[in-house]
């Protein structure tokens, strides 16, 4: 599907020429398809597509592109031997709802955690994370495009663009045709959100992988996973015709249901009010060695680990999976630095939904820092008790509520300060401190499931954090279908960290296969 080529890599004039040729090519293919159908079926297709006029009030160019999306999908179904009636049922225009027929009027305040992200971003630096699903068969871009068109309407807070207000940024509803693109770049590259209705997320595909990259302003890992699962479920429905009997508890939303206010809620004010608040400032942590790469991230690695083995090893060591992996990271971090004194600190995001049950798709997570002196870091057995103890204390509901209240207090105190003052101050503080109070990050999204029959078609899930600023690595874990995937985002070519983690895991009898990008230094 040529129109989804990453057009930003091609000069504008050549791009226009290619686009015209592609459109002409597509028109020929579609005409040939209609001729093959015969007059009766061709008329059915014609009246099917005519319904788009009623369902879509986007600008003409986008509407034409959306029509071509439908045409391409129909042609693909034809090639795949799917009967026309079945194809029309799967692509039914009712899946568009009235979303594309209504003008954009909604807008959403940023949740309290999201407010810092647009303030602190710079050229080449943006808080982006990726969630990806690898399927058991190659991705059909024609159907993925349709799946995105149908899915995005269910997520009105995602169908937005970031705008500047007098005091805060906000999300403005942006009705547009959201476009998938083939993956041609390193994961988690900054998104271009400057345009009038530029989306703060991107959907990309490569071979059998569907990836969604989110600007953190939009959602956190949990909300992002709901979007990915819903998109994948919709894609597989279009591909196979099987409609999974999913419930909201599966984390898959019905794309044709109405969005609820709970899903767009800023849940921060729900936190228990605490007298004590915790600060965000701490001592600088030691950093792993190795030059920071110019291109960030310079490498992404996925450690595919047998989840049962991992759980068994953690249990044998009397620890949780998170604590065990943190221990590995501390030992590996120690091995990857030449410093002899100081403290190593790992940031651990905590999903607040486990303390305050919520269906919100916005950010609702905080973080704690697990910190050990370099002299305390020996082997796994010596660090595990301290890590488990700190995790229990620092990731507790009361500690997290304190941090939540701190966030609320900062937001409340600065709400009357105009953005043009807040932004440079935030950039200055963020640029000065950055992520230097931490050495690394471990974000564990937990166990994710898909209902049958989807589960048999999703092979593995990936969760990748964006490139850190000064930390040499950041790690993310997601477990699906018996495979725990630890993804390491690297900003240095020094391989000490990942090699030590690998060695520690294999020494504990855990089978690890490693996938990823080639090292890249530009």
């Amino acid at each position, binding site marked *: 599907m040529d129109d989804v080529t990453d057009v930003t890599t091609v000069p504008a004039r050549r791009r226009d020429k290619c686009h015209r040729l592609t459109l002409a090519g597509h028109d020929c293919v579609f005409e040939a398809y209609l001729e093959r159908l015969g007059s009766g079926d061709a008329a059915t297709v014609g009246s099917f597509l005519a319904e788009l006029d009623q369902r879509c009030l986007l600008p003409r160019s986008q509407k034409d592109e959306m029509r071509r999306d439908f045409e391409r999908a129909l042609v693909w179904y034809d090639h795949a031997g799917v009967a026309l009636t079945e194809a029309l049922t799967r692509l039914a225009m009712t899946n568009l709802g009235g979303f594309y027929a209504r003008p954009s009027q909604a807008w959403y305040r940023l949740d309290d955690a999201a407010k810092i992200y647009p303030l602190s971003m710079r050229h080449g630096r943006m808080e982006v994370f990726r969630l990806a699903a690898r399927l058991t068969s190659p991705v059909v871009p024609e159907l993925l495009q349709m799946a995105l068109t149908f899915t995005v309407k269910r997520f009105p807070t995602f169908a937005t663009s970031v*705008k500047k207000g007098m005091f*805060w940024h906000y999300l403005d509803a942006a009705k547009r045709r959201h476009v998938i693109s083939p993956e041609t770049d390193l994961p988690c590259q900054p998104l271009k959100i400057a345009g*009038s209705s530029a989306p703060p997320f991107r959907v990309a595909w490569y071979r059998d992988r569907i990836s969604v990259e989110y600007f953190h302003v939009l959602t956190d890992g949990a909300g992002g996973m709901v979007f990915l699962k819903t998109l994948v479920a919709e894609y597989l429905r279009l591909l196979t015709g099987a409609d999974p009997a999913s419930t909201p508890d599966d984390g898959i939303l019905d794309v044709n249901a109405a969005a609820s206010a709970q899903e767009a809620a800023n849940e921060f004010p729900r936190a228990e009010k605490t007298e004590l608040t915790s600060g965000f400032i701490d001592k600088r942590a030691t950093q792993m060695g190795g030059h920071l790469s110019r291109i960030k991230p310079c490498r992404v690695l*996925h450690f595919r680990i047998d989840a049962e083995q991992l759980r068994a090893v953690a249990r044998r060591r009397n620890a949780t999976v998170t604590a065990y992996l943190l221990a590995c990271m501390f030992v590996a971090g120690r091995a990857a630095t030449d410093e002899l004194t100081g403290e190593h600190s790992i940031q651990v995001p905590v999903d607040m939904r486990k303390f305050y049950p919520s269906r919100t798709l916005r950010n609702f997570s905080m973080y704690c820092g697990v910190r050990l002196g370099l002299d305390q870091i020996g082997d796994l057995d010596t660090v595990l008790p301290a890590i488990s103890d700190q995790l229990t204390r620092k990731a507790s509901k009361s500690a997290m509520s304190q941090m939540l209240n701190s966030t609320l207090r900062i937001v409340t105190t600065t*709400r009357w300060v105009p953005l043009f003052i807040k932004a440079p101050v935030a950039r200055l503080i963020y640029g000065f401190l950055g992520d230097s109070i931490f050495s690394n990050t471990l974000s564990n999204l937990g166990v994710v499931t898909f209902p049958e029959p989807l589960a048999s078609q999703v092979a593995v899930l990936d969760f990748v954090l964006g490139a850190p600023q000064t930390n040499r690595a950041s790690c993310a874990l997601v477990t699906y279908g018996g495979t725990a995937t630890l993804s390491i985002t690297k900003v240095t070519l020094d391989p000490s960290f990942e090699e030590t983690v690998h060695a520690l895991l294999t020494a504990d009898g855990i089978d690890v*296969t490693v996938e990823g*990008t080639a090292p890249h230094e530009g």
Partner: protein
Amino acid sequence: MKVEIVYPSPTRPPRRVRVIACAKWPFLATAYACPLINVATGWPAWSLVVLWGLWVVWSSTFSPQLIGINRISQCVKFVTDIVVALVLIDLLLAPGWAATVVPIVCFSSLVVVAVLFFTDLDRQRLNIMPMLALTVLCLISAGTILAAWRNVTRWPLIVLAALAGALLIATLVVLRRDFLRALRKFFDI
């Protein structure tokens, strides 16, 4: 540790970050050197005009805004940059003409902004704040100068005030509820 490569090789080097990294040194050197030379050579303070020029080039070419770029905001930014440059030149280098020229530049730009807005109403109704800011600023400045300053060419200011008022009313009439919604979004705390 054997790594299976499951990603494509990147095809696009991120150029802007590299350009910024290279360009910032000559810019910074000029920004430091000019005031020093200016202090050494004495009045007039031409270095302020140079500094502003550097900022304009930097912020529009090398490091444009990351959020809120659209045809109206770019036009308003361009006009603001020009007006500040004109005022600086008038104050520091060649005095006496800005009070006439600046209102002319402003009302011309209001016409351009109005054309940009009304020719693409569906899309640009989401981007009205820069236009509103410019319009209100023009209206208030023109009104204040007309009321407070007698020895000034009055017709450009009168045209500016009239045009700004007309544009404001036209926007209000065309957008109605969207106008209030835009204000609510913009001033939300």
